[in-house]
């Protein structure tokens, strides 16, 4: 179980996250929902131990801030929206970098074992990129690239995957594929796995899971099943716009498109 206890954090002395406390069981997904600047990404960064924070984050009772980077990487992986890439690596080599924390360095950098190679091939196959395995990543489309990074995260074989708006550069098909794949990854259930996702698009967030955590101005606002925790008024206050009306209008529009009814 992932335990987040009284976590607060900030940048340059300014606090942006206040006393966040929640638990997440293995086998579960959690979508963090809230307006821009409410601290969603900061919370993910705390869990990945990328920034300093007050409070405690532990996995099965082990304090994540106190373990070594290599060990932490075998427990928590991050798939983010931003991926800088200036240098020409092949798809295979990029995914193999996900095995960094598993490969023991010898006199030099250490060589991947059969297990590492199998994990890499399996991950590349899982995201459907086997046909591009030798391609240089700087020649790929945005969607393909994000799938390469997903494969790298899978090859890392963590217990928790943190998704930081990973669908930003993807078209609808690839957004849905990514989210469905992640759900399947958690749901396989043989291993202790969980996912926490931050998405701009509420529909995509809900496609991952209805188990949500609402954030507002750096604070945990509500947590639980979306249907039980959110209502019309709450969402309007949170986002400053009538979310339910907007979604309903959209639904009506798409409903009318069904079977070409709008043409009648």
């Amino acid at each position, binding site marked *: 179980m992932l335990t987040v206890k009284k976590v607060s954090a900030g940048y340059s002395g300014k606090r942006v996250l206040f006393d966040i406390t929640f638990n997440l069981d293995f086998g579960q997904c959690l979508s963090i929902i809230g307006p821009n600047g409410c601290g969603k990404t900061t919370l993910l960064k705390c869990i990945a131990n990328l920034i300093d924070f007050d409070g405690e984050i532990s996995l099965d009772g082990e304090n994540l801030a106190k373990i070594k980077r290599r060990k932490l990487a075998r427990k928590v992986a991050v798939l983010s929206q931003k991926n800088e890439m200036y*240098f020409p690596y092949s798809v295979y080599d990029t995914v193999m970098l996900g095995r960094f924390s598993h490969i023991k*360095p010898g006199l030099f950098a250490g060589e991947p074992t059969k297990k590492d190679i199998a994990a890499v091939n399996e991950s590349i196959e899982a995201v459907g990129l086997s046909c591009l395995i030798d391609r240089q990543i700087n020649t790929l489309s945005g969607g393909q690239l994000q799938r390469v990074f997903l494969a790298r995260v899978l090859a890392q074989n963590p217990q928790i995957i943190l998704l930081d708006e990973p669908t930003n550069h993807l078209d609808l098909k690839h957004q849905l594929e990514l989210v469905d794949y992640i759900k399947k990854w958690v749901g396989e259930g043989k291993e202790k796995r969980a996912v926490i996702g931050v998405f701009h698009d509420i529909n995509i967030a809900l496609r991952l899971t209805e188990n949500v955590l609402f954030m507002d101005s750096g604070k945990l606002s509500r947590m639980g099943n979306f249907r039980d925790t959110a209502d019309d008024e709450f969402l309007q206050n949170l986002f400053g716009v009538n979310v339910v009306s907007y979604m309903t209008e959209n639904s009506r529009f798409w409903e009318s498109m069904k079977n070409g009814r709008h043409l009648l």
Partner: protein
Amino acid sequence: MKTFPQWLKILLCIFSAIIALILGIGIGSVYITPGEIAAVIANKIFALPLPETTTDITAAIIMNVRLPRAVAAFIVGAGLSAGGAVMQSVLANPLASGYTLGVASGASLGVTVTLFFGVTFLGIFTLPFMGFIFGLFTVLIAVTAASRFDRNTGSAAVILIGMVMSLFVNAVVTLLMGLNKDAAKSVIFWQMGSFSGMDNKTVLIIFPITLVIILLLLRYSRAMDLMTFGDEQALSAGVNSRFTKTLLLTLSSALTGAAVAFVGTIGFIDLIAPHAVRKIFGAKHKIVIPMSAVAGGGFMVLSDLLARTVIAPVELPVGAVTAIIGAPIFAYIFLKKSK
């Protein structure tokens, strides 16, 4: 080049570097054939007899002048290029080099202080020693300040503080040069870069430093691969960024510093060689670091050859030659890549 297997490309690159070395040793006011070069080297190493056509003068030119100069140029080129490759990856910035972090400015300050105050505690090695120490010290200050400022020693912080340090140190150098015109002349002469003073002793000092540092860097090749994707990616994949970055920046600055201290500030090679190598061999550091060293070494030997032969007997500053040839090549590689 994509159709060639990797091992063949590596062999071709090493072979080209050897050709560069043979040209570097053979061409000059006296032309020496590759056969004579091989005979003289075999004579020195295996005590084989010299052919009758090879005079003692030829042997002396090779062993005391051309060979140390070409080998020194090779090692300096190798060190600068491998150092540049590391800087670019560690700072996830394709334009980074040892100079970005102030190695060159620091070394200039060391040289200026030496000449200004007439320091001579290590004899002829005082100048390179002071250059090396000041260069390394400047980088260490920049990296330490960056790690205080940012707990993961973020690349943007390192580059910014490095550039500020560089500007500050350059200002001090200019100030000292303004106060002592004689020292200023010598500093400018040093800054232009030259291999003219290279002898066997110099080679024996820079060779082990360069080799050991390059071998140490190879241990971190996979961490460097991850660091090219940025700090957060590297951290979340298991790289202890703060430690690794500080170590790699220090090692690569020492590599650049050792090279710069002996021959002056020679630019561009640390940008061209790693970029050309990445284009031919791909981006994995396991290959990029040793091949940058080989390609950079070969390129430096050829640049030095041009510097001393184009308008002989006048010798051009080798730094100017690398920049004049290097800038268009670099622009070509870089612009072609971004198409």
